[in-house]
């Protein structure tokens, strides 16, 4: 029993830090506000250290096989904690300009930490119940966080749409899980895959197939894949920008980690299942096409990012449709590149929002000349998102497309690359605003005020994006050694 607890020490640390921050902010009040973010950051760093100390060498299955400690979960847990650390770092500057977040700062950080705990649990989930619980733990705080700006009707709309549709998706997903249980008699993912393979259920057991498809619906919602994406534009636009950054990175990491777990560990030979692969291909096609086409007319940056994240989910789903081991680590590399580019882009957007008081793309006007360093980094992020070399986005797309071609999905890859060309237009539009449009507004907002922490974070993200192309072997070795399969 005690050994079991050792495996979740990182999660315990993060939860305790969250509760500490919550309770102290209730009892100490406003004076505590300045200390909340540093304490959170220290807690996250402690969590990362704990993973290395306690989990790196003690791999195994704990809590009656619902919590799996292995390279895959350790990789994702560190990844999630680093991403959360960056989000917390960005939030420091952001909350200064907000009204409602400032009033309830303790709860804000507590909820963010709960999201990251949920994400960590998801990546280590060993059975269906754990998958569902951790998914809810990721989702419910994000519903609340999306609606944090109480008097802003956009924020309320965002939270409500996300909540209602999210609950519906979770319900469908857990119904799917129950069908999987009904078909196999097991909830443990490894045992499920054993039952599925032995009974060749993917070919003839329709209860199982429908169950898997329904769980895919739930996960599709979470990663904002079409046709389950309808919540994304409004939620991304309405939520406070720091929460949009959280949803687009951490919630997506969690959902993809969970999906890898379900498909590769739970239904290990899903590449032989026609229905499942067809469903994933359909999601990926729709996401890539719809996401890119609907992004073209967007005028609000956050809404644009929502559609762009839909299209990125589409590309990553090509990796899932390829259903091979190389596809799995390709998805992980793409996720790393995706999170770095997105956090950087949103950081720049938060700077623009703060100084220019607008979320519109036209608010980016003239930044190329007022803030040259930030704009060069933004060029790096935007071009990386298109998938052009020499940036990380290219490496991510290269390996995903490589996996796709290897699995005879060349036609899908061709559609993927053609939609990437479409995406060039709207990403370059932002560059156009930065360099080719004059800023006609309040002289006060001409030069973006940039806190030092933002410089560091944006520079780090840009550096990471370039590093992934210069020395990709490190990342490839990392992800290749972190893959998960049913036979552990």
């Amino acid at each position, binding site marked *: 029993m005690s050994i079991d607890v050792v495996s979740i020490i990182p999660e315990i640390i993060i939860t305790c830090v969250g509760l500490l921050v919550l309770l102290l902010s209730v009892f100490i009040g406003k004076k505590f506000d300045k200390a909340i973010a540093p304490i959170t950051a220290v807690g996250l760093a402690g969590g990362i250290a704990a993973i290395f100390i306690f989990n790196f060498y003690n791999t195994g299955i704990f809590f009656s096989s619902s919590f799996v400690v292995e390279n895959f979960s350790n990789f994702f847990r560190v990844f999630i904690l680093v991403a959360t650390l960056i989000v917390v770092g960005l939030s420091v500057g952001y909350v200064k300009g907000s009204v409602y977040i400032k009033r309830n700062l303790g709860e804000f950080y507590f909820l963010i930490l709960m999201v990251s705990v949920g994400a960590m649990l998801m990546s280590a989930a060993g059975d269906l119940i754990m998958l569902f619980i951790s998914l809810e733990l990721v989702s419910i705080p994000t519903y609340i966080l999306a609606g944090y700006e109480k008097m802003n009707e956009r924020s309320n709309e965002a939270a409500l749409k996300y909540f209602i549709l999210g609950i519906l998706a979770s319900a469908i997903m857990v119904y799917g899980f129950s069908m999987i249980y009904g078909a196999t008699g097991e909830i443990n993912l490894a045992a499920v895959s054993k039952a599925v393979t032995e009974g060749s259920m993917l070919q003839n057991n329709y209860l199982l197939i429908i169950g898997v498809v329904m769980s895919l619906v739930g996960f599709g919602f979470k990663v904002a894949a079409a046709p389950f994406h309808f919540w994304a534009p409004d939620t991304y636009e309405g939520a406070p920008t720091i929460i949009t950054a959280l949803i687009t990175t951490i919630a997506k990491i969690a959902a993809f980690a969970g999906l890898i777990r379900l498909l590769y560990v739970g239904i290990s030979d899903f590449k032989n299942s026609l229905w499942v692969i067809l469903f994933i291909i359909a999601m990926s096609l729709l996401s890539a096409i719809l996401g890119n086409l609907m992004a073209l007319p967007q005028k609000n940056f956050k809404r644009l990012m929502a559609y762009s994240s839909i299209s990125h989910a589409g590309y990553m789903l090509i990796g899932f449709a390829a259903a091979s081991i190389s596809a799995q680590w390709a998805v992980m590399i793409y996720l790393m590149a995706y999170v770095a580019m997105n956090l950087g882009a949103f950081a720049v957007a938060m700077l623009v929002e703060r100084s220019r008081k607008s979320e519109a793309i036209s608010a980016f006007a003239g930044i190329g000349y007022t803030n040259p360093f930030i704009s060069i980094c933004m*060029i790096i992020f935007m*071009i990386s998102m*298109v*998938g*052009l*070399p*020499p940036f990380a986005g*290219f490496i991510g797309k*290269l*390996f995903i*497309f*490589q996996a796709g*071609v*290897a699995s005879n999905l*060349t036609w899908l*890859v*061709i559609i993927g*690359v*053609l939609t*990437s*060309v479409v995406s*060039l*237009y709207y990403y*370059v539009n932002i560059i*156009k605003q930065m*360099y*080719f449009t004059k800023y006609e507004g309040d002289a006060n907002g001409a030069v973006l005020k940039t806190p030092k922490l933002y410089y560091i974070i944006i520079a780090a993200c840009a550096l990471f994006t370039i590093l992934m*192309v210069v020395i*990709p*072997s490190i990342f*490839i*070795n990392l992800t*290749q050694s972190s893959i998960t399969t049913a036979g552990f």
Partner: protein
Amino acid sequence: MGFNILSLITFIPIVGMLVIALVPNKGEKSAKWIALITSLAILGLSIFLWLSFNGSQGGMQFTEKYHWIPGVNIYYHLGVDGISMPFVFLTCLLTVLCVLVSWNITNKPKVFFALLLLLVTGMIGVFIALDFILFYIFWELVLLPMYFLIGIWGSANRMYAAIKFFLFTLFGSVLMLVGILMLYFNSGLQTFDILELTKNSLAPGMQNWIFLLLFMGFAIKVPMFPFHTWLPDAHTEAPTAGSVLLAGILLKMGAYGFIRIGIPVLPEASKSWAPAIAILAVIGIIYGALASLIQKDLKRLVAFSSVSHMGFVMLGISSLTPTAINGAVLQMFNHGCITGMLFLLVGMLYERTHTRMIADMGGLANKIPLFAGIFAFTSFASLGLPGLSGFWGEFLVLFGTFTKGSVFSKVMVYIAVIGIVLGAAYLLWMLQRVIFGKYNEKLGELKRLSWLEFVTLAPLIVIIILVGVYPTPIINMINNSVIHILGM
């Protein structure tokens, strides 16, 4: 070689770019000097390379091969042979000339020269990369700097031209990427190395598909009819340095791709596609010439003449005989010199008259005789006057195509020869209207050719005469490598 000369030539411009970027803002003047020193350095290195190059050997020389991403067999592999050597030299030379012709720009010179140097790295890298992914990265690297060069320093319609260029060429490039991935998996060799891929054993059907994908990438770049529509806009709206590099080098990348990759790696597909390419090439020759004939804008006339000249290159490539391909490579080199010089001259003319319209000019021979003389000289070179270099390229292409013997080739040659007559027509008529006739008094007084401008034009004049009178050394160098390629 004691040192890796090819890597040096490729990456010194990036070092130069970083130096320019890091020099503080007052260093607007130093930017052009740094660019000049950098480009002279690589010109010196490329001359040294040419002198050390063994022209009688057909294979790759000065090769460098390092592991880059061992997990997926991607190497950092560079090498130069008789086909790429002229272009490395030409790129370095044209870069120096572009720096000189842009010496007096006032609009953000620092950014201009930094982008120019970044462009140079991409251009040189394409010609010497021997690993397909490395080739692709350098190929894409030129897009972003060119977009900015056209978009910021271009003429009235520059935004449209810039984004059209970016989107159109990216569309071809991503299809090329899918072709590259298909080659990796289907060639049975699991390698991206261009030299090793020539030993593949692909079925003709698969070869055709892959050739189609690669064809899209190369044909749009050449540009072949009907994919040429980006070229007139991009060339016309770009600043002088941009047009020179676009016409001089970027167009050659497409044809080089056919010779380096299309023919050796996919020989059966090249044979089956050859008639189609020949027809498109000849259409391009005639169409380009006819379109030049009706142009009112001088720069647009030269742009369409590029379409026509590259048609000769593609005709030579499609003939698949050593003589014709020698002619094609020589024509590429000559076109780079001649049309590069034409754009330099048009740029110098624009600075004096502030108009590109032929109707506004006339009688320049009276006012700026030296300039008019050089302009006439270049036009004669462009129409293929024997004694100047342009003749040899076109002659060898036609000779090589005609001696193939088939009725089809003979008909192609008959039609192509009409293109030469049309070429004479549009160039001589343009000369008559621009430098002869009555002087248009509205232009005022025109500056004589300055010392700096003469120094910019002189090297190209020398090369055009030299290659026109004694082309043997360069043809021998090209020939050895072409035979080496065709022998595979």
